[in-house]
C-alpha cells in the first residue's frame, strides 16, 4: 500500500497548521514571570542595611559599591549604594549573603540603556521610589510568612 507514509506526514502538518499561534505579542502581552525571577532593579532597603558589605564581598564580579558613615547612635548609614547592572551576572549571591534581608533581586527585565553610565543603579538616591522585590531566596516573601531575621526595630544599635 503506497501513500500511507506521506498521508501520515501531511496529517502532522495539517494538525499544526490548524493550531493557534503561540507567538507572544511582546510589547502588548508579556510572558508570565516567576515570582522568584532574578531580574534587574535590585530592591535595596536603607533602613535594613547595616553597611556590613557582605554583599560586596560575595559578589563574584565586584560590582557593588558601598560607602558608609558612622552615625552618632553607633549605627552605620549608607551614603552610597550602587550596583553596576551592566556587569551583573544576576547570580543572586548578594541576596543570599545578606544577613539582614536588605537587598532583593528585582522582577524587571526591560533595562536597555543608551549610555554605559546609565546602567549603574543607585538605590541610595531613590529612597522613595517603589520597589518590586523578587522572592528569590526569600520564599517567605511570596507566602506572606514572617521571617526569622531581625527587623530594624528589633535590633539594638545603641550600644
Amino acid at each position, binding site marked *: 500500500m503506497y501513500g500511507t507514509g506521506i498521508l501520515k506526514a501531511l496529517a502532522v502538518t495539517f494538525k499544526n497548521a490548524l493550531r493557534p*499561534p*503561540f*507567538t*507572544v*505579542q*511582546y*510589547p502588548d502581552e*508579556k*510572558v508570565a514571570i516567576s515570582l522568584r525571577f532574578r531580574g*534587574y532593579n535590585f530592591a535595596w532597603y536603607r533602613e535594613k542595611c547595616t553597611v556590613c558589605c557582605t554583599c560586596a564581598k560575595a559578589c*563574584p*564580579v565586584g560590582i557593588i559599591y558601598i560607602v558608609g558613615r558612622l552615625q552618632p547612635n553607633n549605627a552605620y548609614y549608607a551614603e552610597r549604594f550602587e550596583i*553596576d*547592572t*551592566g*556587569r*551583573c*551576572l*544576576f547570580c543572586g549571591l548578594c541576596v543570599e549573603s545578606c544577613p539582614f534581608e536588605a537587598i532583593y533581586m528585582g522582577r524587571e*527585565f*526591560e*533595562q*536597555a*540603556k*543608551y*549610555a*554605559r*553610565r546609565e*546602567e549603574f543603579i543607585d538605590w541610595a538616591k531613590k529612597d522613595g521610589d517603589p520597589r518590586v522585590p523578587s522572592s528569590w531566596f526569600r520564599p517567605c516573601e511570596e507566602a506572606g510568612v514572617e521571617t526569622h531575621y531581625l527587623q530594624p526595630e528589633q535590633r539594638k544599635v545603641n550600644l
Partner: protein
Amino acid sequence: MVEVYQHYLRAGPPAALLTESDRDEGQRINELIMRCRTPYPDQPPGFDRGTPGIVVTTADTMLNWARRNSVWPVLLGLACCAFEMIAAAASRFDLARFGMEVFRGSPRQADLLIVSGTVTWKMGEALRRIYDQMAEPKWVMAMGSCATCGGPFTNAYNVVNGVNLLMPVDIYVPGCPPRPDALIYGLMQLQKKIEQESLARKRK
C-alpha cells in the same frame, strides 16, 4: 606524550610549530590592543542635534520611518547570548513583527550589529572589520554583560573590556544573558533612537 605536554606547559609550543602567519597574527592583535585603549563615547538620542528646516524634517520623518522598520541585523553570534538572539528571532518571540527577521549573512546588506557575547581580541579584529564593511547607516548593540564591559572576564588577558573599545555602541542591553523579551525591548529602544535621528547632523 606526557613529556610533550609538559613541555607545552613549561615553554609553550615549540618553535617549529609556530608558523610565520601565527607570528603575524599575534603582532596584529597586539597592535589592535595598543590602538584600542580609550572607549568610544556614548551617543544618547538627540545628541548634537541641529535645527533642521521643514524640508529636512519631512525627509527625516520618511527616512526614519523606513529605517526603523527594516533594521536588518548581521548574522553573527559570538557566545551564549547568541542563543537568546536566536530565540528572539524564532517563532515564540517573533522578531519579524518588527521587520528585523532578515539576519543577513553579508555585512554589506545589514544595518545592525548585535554583539552577542564575549569578544576576544582575536575575534575583535574580525568584528571591527565586519563593522567597517557595513554600509551607513549602521547601529551597534552591545548585548549582555560581556559585550557591555567584559562581564566576568574583565581581568582576562584575551577579552575586550567592552565592545565600545572597538566601535561606537548605540545601545546596551544588560543581562547575562538577557531574555529574548529584554533583547526585543532593546531593539524597540533602538527604534526610538533612530526616530530621533536627523539628516542635518553627521552620524558618529
